[in-house]
């Protein structure tokens, strides 16, 4: 028995097929989910992939957040189902308030695509158990609305509770407050980050590194051992 991991496609989602591939490479079953369906097809976890859902019009993630599928995702996430939001998926998660803060236009105002070094700050979440706390990884980053902001009180709280899951190293590519690249909710089942682990799962492709595979093996182990 392996785990079933759902990958949601919104109109304008771009990285759904790559994410499915990453899920399969990790050894899990990838289950495509459609934004108009409330039904999650009995998956054990859900990934909200990257892209420009609804063209990022209005605000990134703002329109997708109201998709029927998200009603169920919000409900299940609150009940403990693991949810990972990558890039646009992270933006959707902040719009739903499953994760605090918001994502704004990069401080340099350009789209940026680069290899990005990160530190895994919290290896205790559902999606990071295969990493060690403090581990440095290098995965692609690509976005134009990647600047993480939240008010000081929220930021302090995130830090105090160890909920800053990933921090940018060497360069802060977008002006995110406190170099935050990704965060988790208090329970550790909902994680969001801007960089793209699913683009770093095969040695030949993209940056040529496989530093992102750990996200998908982490969740697989957790689900299979559960």
């Amino acid at each position, binding site marked *: 028995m392996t785990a079933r991991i759902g990958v949601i496609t919104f109109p304008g989602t771009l990285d759904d097929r790559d994410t499915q591939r990453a899920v399969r490479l990790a050894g899990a079953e990838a289950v495509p989910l459609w934004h108009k369906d409330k039904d999650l097809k009995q998956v054990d976890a859900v990934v909200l992939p990257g*892209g420009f859902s609804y063209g990022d019009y209005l605000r990134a993630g703002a329109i997708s957040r109201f998709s029927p599928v998200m009603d169920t995702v919000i409900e299940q996430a609150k009940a403990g189902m693991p949810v990972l939001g990558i890039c646009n998926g992270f933006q959707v998660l902040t719009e739903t308030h499953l994760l605090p803060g918001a994502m704004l236009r990069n401080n340099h105002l350009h789209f940026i*695509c680069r290899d990005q070094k990160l530190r895994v700050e919290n290896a205790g979440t559902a999606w990071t158990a295969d990493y060690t706390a403090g581990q440095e990884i290098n995965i*692609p980053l690509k976005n134009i609305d990647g600047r993480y902001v939240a008010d000081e009180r929220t930021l302090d709280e995130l830090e105090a509770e160890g909920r800053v899951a990933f921090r940018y190293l060497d360069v802060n590519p977008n002006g995110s407050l406190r170099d935050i690249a990704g965060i988790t909710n208090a329970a550790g089942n909902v994680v969001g980050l801007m960089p793209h682990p699913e683009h770093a799962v095969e040695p030949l492709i993209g940056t040529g590194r496989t530093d992102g595979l750990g996200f998908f093996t982490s969740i697989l182990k957790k689900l299979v051992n559960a």
Partner: protein
Amino acid sequence: MTLDTVKHAAGTPDVDQPWAELGLKQEEYERVREILGRRPTGAELAMYSVMWSEHCSYKSSKVHLRQFGEKAPETDALLVGIGENAGVVDVGNGYAVTFKVESHNHPSYVEPYQGAATGVGGIVRDIIAMGARPVAVVDPLRFGAADHPDTKRVLPGVVAGIGGYGNCLGLPNIGGEVVFDSCYQGNPLVNAGAIGVMRHEDIHLAKASGAGNKVILYGARTGGDGIGGASILASETFDDSKPSKRPAVQVGDPFQEKLLIECTLEAFAEKLVVGIQDLGAAGLSCATSELASNGSGGMRVELDDVPLRDSTLSPEEILMSESQERMCAVVEPEKVDRFLEICEKWDVTATVIGEVTDGDRLEIFWHGEKIVDVDPRTVAHEGPVYERPYARPEWQDTLQADDAAKLARPANGDELREQVLKLVGSPNQASKSWITSQYDHFVQGNTVLASPEDSGMIRIDAESGLGVALATDGNGRFAKLDPYHGAQLALAESYRNVAATGAKPLAVSDCLNFGSPEDPAVMWQFAEAIRGLADGCQQLGTPVTGGNVSLYNQTGEAAIHPTPVVAVLGVIDDVARRTPVAFAEEGQLLYLLGDTRDELSGSAWAQVIHDHLGGLPPEVDLERERLLAEILISASRDGMIDAAHDLSDGGLVQALVESCLKGGKGARVVIPDGQDPFVTLFSESAGRAVVSVPRSEELRFTDMCGARGLPVTRIGVVDGDVLDVQGQFSIPLSELRTAHEETIPGIFG
């Protein structure tokens, strides 16, 4: 206002029509009347005028473009050739690849962001229309001088537009070019290319057949975009009271296009589509007339059924509108419901607007009245053809006589060092990563190589590792000196770039950017460039599968440099064998392949150091290019080389600097015995590459080159963090990096 119906037109032969304002010549208008046997209706005039424009009819270029067919080399690889939306090439394992390059030059000068964005949108629709999933884009760009204030307006907008559209569409940008030259000041060249992949059986064509089949228009609603011409028609002839305030600028909606891709591919997968055509230039006029002309029957269209964004549009305007993100499909009646369901799933507006008839006329109705009744072939394919006069300009001899040999050369190591830094930091030779980092390279998860590499490479089959490579090149300076050989040099460079990554060159697409065809000198450049390209493709065995012509790129009397941009597509059996440009392994040996001659005319050195353009471009030897390619491909396949970089503008030293910086490793270089250091480093002789060879492979590699007769010279070793040219100069990588990487952000950042 009376509707200008066919009947009305027949009864009112003497009405004054604004054919001149619409860009038709007197003879052309007369021919339309002759074809129809009466005067055209307003709607017919609209259609003929856009379809017979230079852009749509290729009336000045057709007679020359024929050579691509006439001289096409024998090949089994070509599945669909010139004449369709894009050519299709067999790449093995049942896969087919379609690719094409197009220009969006003028719109990008007027409105850089939207012009460039809609350029990407247009080329991608051509790829979808062939039945393929688009998998990558490239963007060969040319701007005026880097430090000109208008370039600061145009370049950032163009780059943001290409990125904004392509990124949102989910297409990795894997290559392109950025060239600055003051000849492009008022005429930047924004070319965009795309690649798509499909199975052989999925190839679709733009053709309407099967009487009773339905014509479905789907995608964005039709608005008043890009119909300056039609508003002349609408306002001046038919309704004077109407404001002719139609935007000539089209705004792109990449989100809509992404939906269009997905819903079209889903419809293809369910075999719902008989024929398909994208809507680009000339909008519905083009789509309906081309579909009908290519098909077996006629077509009947109810224009009232076209979904509009602006309810005040006249029928002429609807026919001419260039609203983006629209497609037209021909679908069997019993499959229409399923087709519409798929569109609905993707929130795409879709409407049946007509059907294929068993006649041979294209008939268009408005409010129940017939406003168009034409033979579609006369609109789409039997437009005017001109044999424009051409003549070698008098100044060509003077230009060619003005050789770079007279220019002062660096006299010692210190001067060489200084010029190397100047060269690699000049806008044309500097790193373009400020630009390319605004493009997504990774989306779709199949990118093997992306800029800055010799060519972009995409994996198309994860199981076997089958992949394709694409490079685009053009050198307007060489083409100005000698358009015939300049075009061949562009082909040779692109071909070499593909081979350098380990892929076998298969086929060619091109985008021919020139000045006004009404100038005999420009026409000569154009004719020569095509002759050169067609001869070159014949010799290299790579057929031209399609392309695009952009004329009238000139300001007043001043034309741009003739700029044929050539894209070469290659295939690689296993992307695991690809060769990158980076020197990554200390101790590996550097070999220079090919012959270096004293060829500095038209070079980057002549431009950067002396602002000079004159003389003859480097010699072309296509047999040598073919041999070099074979060696590079074999060496890659058999694991004999770990890095390769072709030599082109900037010569050997430019290639060394790029490969060192990419790999973060220095090199110790020895100038071969008896060679002039300056010529060795800066010459732009064609047919060359530099490779990095593991010591264990040295003998095998040099033996192979020797056996096949390719000159091979050991020139150094990968080592340290300095580029050291022994006995001449030495430059730390950090200093090279600063020079190379800070120029572009310094100007545009």
